[in-house]
């Protein structure tokens, strides 16, 4: 796209006008330009380095209360006209099956600009420096005897969005996200054991510049990470029992994602995701009534948090970023919603509509859904636990279609005995029922142990979309949990 920023916004406006001319009662258009860069090093050898660039425009229309959406990578005038007309035709076709016409809750039409803050543009950092970091981290890991694979990765992402609507909105936003991680793999005796740092699945990504990757400590933590992977090979299996469970903040983040973040998506509650990702055990009647969790647990959806993957100025409907209480002192309060769905239950949008690139229509997606910090460190929580199991770093996840029964696997665990970490366990996992589990929470760490994690791989929708979302989490403790499922 050779156009300047104003030019691209002009294309979005042109698309909106074309849709209106074709018969849309409401129209919005998002022109999106995305860049990614990804590096992977394994055992001090390059596994891959690649860059990708994508741009295009998605046009969303309402005709007689029915949605239509069409998207194209070609941004010339004729193609814009054709795509806008197609979006209108799609909306008209949708009226083949009558439904209550879509009504959008009001929003101020904003003209604005937003950029995620960063100190050092990661795309300008020389490749040599990025590779050198990963080479050194993998070299340090390889010094540990018995390690099979030492991997390091860096992932960079930049998205420019230009949004225009028939209500007069004109918004330009840019987010830059950077992340990195290391992973150590040990293999032997029918076991493959992995340890990752700072988190699994390519590390810790944040809406920040290269300074974030620099500060991760990939080199400094390499030896410990590799040592734990090798030690896991000879560790005993996590026992099967009901016990007290302490989770590190990374695993609490994914527990929030699967068993709170998804169930509170209002489109799922209204059945709009029924056939694919599933629905939710929640209903609108639960607001203000359902004891979702113990009194220690307060959960907030906050799109204004600096550094979050779910942070923005406005969502992809032009609704401003908000901080929304989801669970307050254990009681469920609010869903995350869109302009369409909020109206269905008599509220206003929480500003959670986001699309994966230009090719997809926006869906309700998590912003940064976080547990509010309480008190103490991980060491404090462990120190206050007489007997139990501490699990760290997510390895796998599974939850039913209404987000009730879950099972998670972690990379590593230790026995907690009289306030101390003792025996290491391999292949730890735990299972539970969402509300029973959260109600059993009796310790949540404080601000000093709270991390805003990035989850860049949240799947939802048809065609399938991937969202980049955030979760702030502290370590937490849960009572009477089934661990060691076999």
């Amino acid at each position, binding site marked *: 796209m050779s156009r300047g920023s104003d030019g691209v916004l002009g294309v979005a406006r042109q698309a909106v006008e074309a849709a209106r001319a074709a018969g849309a009662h409401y129209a919005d258009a998002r022109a999106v330009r995305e860049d990614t860069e990804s590096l992977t090093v394994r055992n001090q050898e390059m596994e891959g380095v690649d860059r990708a660039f994508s741009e295009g425009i998605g046009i969303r229309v309402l005709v007689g209360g029915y949605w239509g959406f069409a998207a194209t990578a070609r941004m010339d005038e004729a193609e814009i006209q054709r795509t806008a007309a197609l979006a209108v035709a799609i909306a008209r076709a949708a009226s083949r099956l009558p439904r209550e016409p879509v009504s959008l809750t009001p929003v101020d039409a904003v003209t604005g600009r937003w950029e995620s803050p960063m100190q050092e543009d990661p795309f300008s950092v020389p490749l040599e420096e990025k590779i050198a970091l990963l080479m050194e981290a993998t070299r340090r890991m390889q010094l540990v005897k018995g390690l099979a694979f030492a991997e390091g990765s860096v992932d960079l992402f930049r998205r420019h969005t230009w949004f225009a609507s028939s209500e007069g909105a004109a918004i330009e936003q840019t987010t830059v996200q950077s992340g990195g991680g290391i992973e150590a793999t040990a293999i032997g005796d029918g076991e493959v054991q992995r340890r990752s740092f700072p988190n699994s699945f390519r590390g810790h990504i944040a809406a920040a510049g290269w300074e974030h990757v620099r500060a991760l400590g990939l080199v400094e933590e390499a030896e410990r990470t590799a040592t734990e992977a090798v030690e896991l090979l000879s560790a005993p299996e996590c026992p099967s029992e009901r016990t007290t469970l302490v989770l590190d903040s990374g695993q609490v983040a994914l527990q929030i994602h699967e068993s709170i973040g998804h169930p509170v998506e209002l489109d799922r509650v209204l059945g709009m995701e029924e056939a694919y990702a599933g629905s939710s055990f929640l209903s609108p009647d639960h607001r203000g009534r359902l004891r979702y969790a113990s009194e220690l647990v307060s959960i907030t959806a906050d799109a204004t948090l600096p550094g979050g993957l779910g942070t923005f100025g406005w969502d992809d409907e032009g609704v401003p970023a908000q901080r929304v209480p989801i669970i307050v002192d254990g009681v469920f309060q609010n869903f995350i919603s869109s302009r369409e769905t909020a109206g269905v239950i008599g509220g206003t949008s929480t500003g959670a509509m986001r699309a994966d690139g230009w090719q997809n229509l926006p869906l309700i997606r998590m912003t940064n859904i976080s547990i509010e910090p309480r008190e103490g460190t991980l060491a404090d929580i462990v120190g206050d636990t007489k007997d139990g199991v501490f699990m760290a770093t997510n390895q796998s996840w599974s939850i039913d279609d209404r987000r009730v029964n879950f*099972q998670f696997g972690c990379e590593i665990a230790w026995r907690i005995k009289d306030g101390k970490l003792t025996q290491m366990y391999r292949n730890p996992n735990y299972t539970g029922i969402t509300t029973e589990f959260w109600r059993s929470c009796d310790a949540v760490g404080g601000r000093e142990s709270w991390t805003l994690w990035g989850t860049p791989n949240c799947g939802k929708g048809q065609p399938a979309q991937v969202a980049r979302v955030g979760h702030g989490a502290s370590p937490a403790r849960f009572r009477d949990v089934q661990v060691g499922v076999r």
Partner: protein
Amino acid sequence: MPGAFGPDEVRRVAEPALELPGVDGVEVLLMHEWGGLTRFASSAIHQSTWREDTAVRVRVVSAGRIGVCATNEFTPEGARRAAESAREMAAVVAPDPQFPGLAPPRPVPERDGFDEATASTTPETRAEGVAALVAQCAPGFEAAGAFETTAMEIAVANTEGQFCWTSSTQASLTTVVTGGEGGSGFAEVFAGRVADVDPEAVGRRAAGKARASQNPHDLDPGRYTVILEPSAVATPVGFLAWIGFGGRALLEGRSCFSGKEGRQVAAPSISIYDDATSPLTLGVPFDFEGVPRSRVDLIEHGVFRGAVYDLRSARQAGTESTGHALPPPNPEGPFPLNLFLAPGDAALEEMIASTERGLLVTRFHYSNVVHPVESTITGMTRDGTFLIERGEVGRPVKNLRFTQSILEALTNTTMIGRDTELASEFFFSASRVPAIKVEAFNFTGRSDH
């Protein structure tokens, strides 16, 4: 509606990248996809989309150093810019000592997988299909799902002289019917031609399941004989693609088949193979490196025969690529995209009639790996799970969680269906599989619906 660019235009787009000076080799992967998806919920169309996108992915080789750059600017200028960016990366990275070279020129199998009617399906046609499906729902029941029609062309060109191009179409219709007093039903169909999608049949099947699964009962977890319908069988088969059948994972000891070549890993009745060239699947006749795909027997009569390979892992293993590369750079290695579980001779009714007590499972949901080397996965049942007693399907049961080794389940398989379906899995491409009957399948938990 757009159409395919065709091989000549695609070659023209790739040309400037292939002519990039100062490098040892260039590979250009070109993709063009377009189509629509009509999504419905509560028996109405709520999200309906159409999109067209392109991709030019250029891999540049310079003194054993590799750089990859992708763009969706499908023009000669876009390809040239991507090639230059890839060259810039290749100039500074370390060499890949395992780089096997680019694919040599070889003919690829012909495959006529393009149906003009599918490529040009209108939103009105899809809406009519959805209406026909929804009409199968009894009063008090609703349907949700998606009707998708897509077309694609893909080509690989490289400086070794390999050029291959193909185009294909796909139509799919999936639905979940809910309502009444709880319970739900699922059905799906995948085809290369929209004419082969029968919305009424899909709706009837799902609606029937939904009616039958009303008022599900609690059932204690434990080991049960199960009859897995094809949509459920797609889960264990699909996961074997991820944790077992890749040549790189096999070589590195990460596969559940590592060290098991030539050994019995499943019941003698189990044969699994990958075959993109079969008319019974929706495959592309070459891989993303431009190597022709061929049928690979992975498990034959219960014996593990071997894995799939791309050029890099084949070189490491001292064998030939089987044509299973994913787009570069792909650190995960080769992957089978067109799996088959060979049919047996049993009718589903015979499996049920032969079962004194067991469970009939429609499909699984959101499964994931528990122990990759032991091939253990966990997941939930969904959209129709029924108790079988004394040879008959009886009351529906609430959804159960399984935690089960796939290879143990395939070893405990006692009957295999004679009819196969292309069935999807949440994370993976569709496999063609029959129903199977498995003894002592391990359920470890339950849900409330």
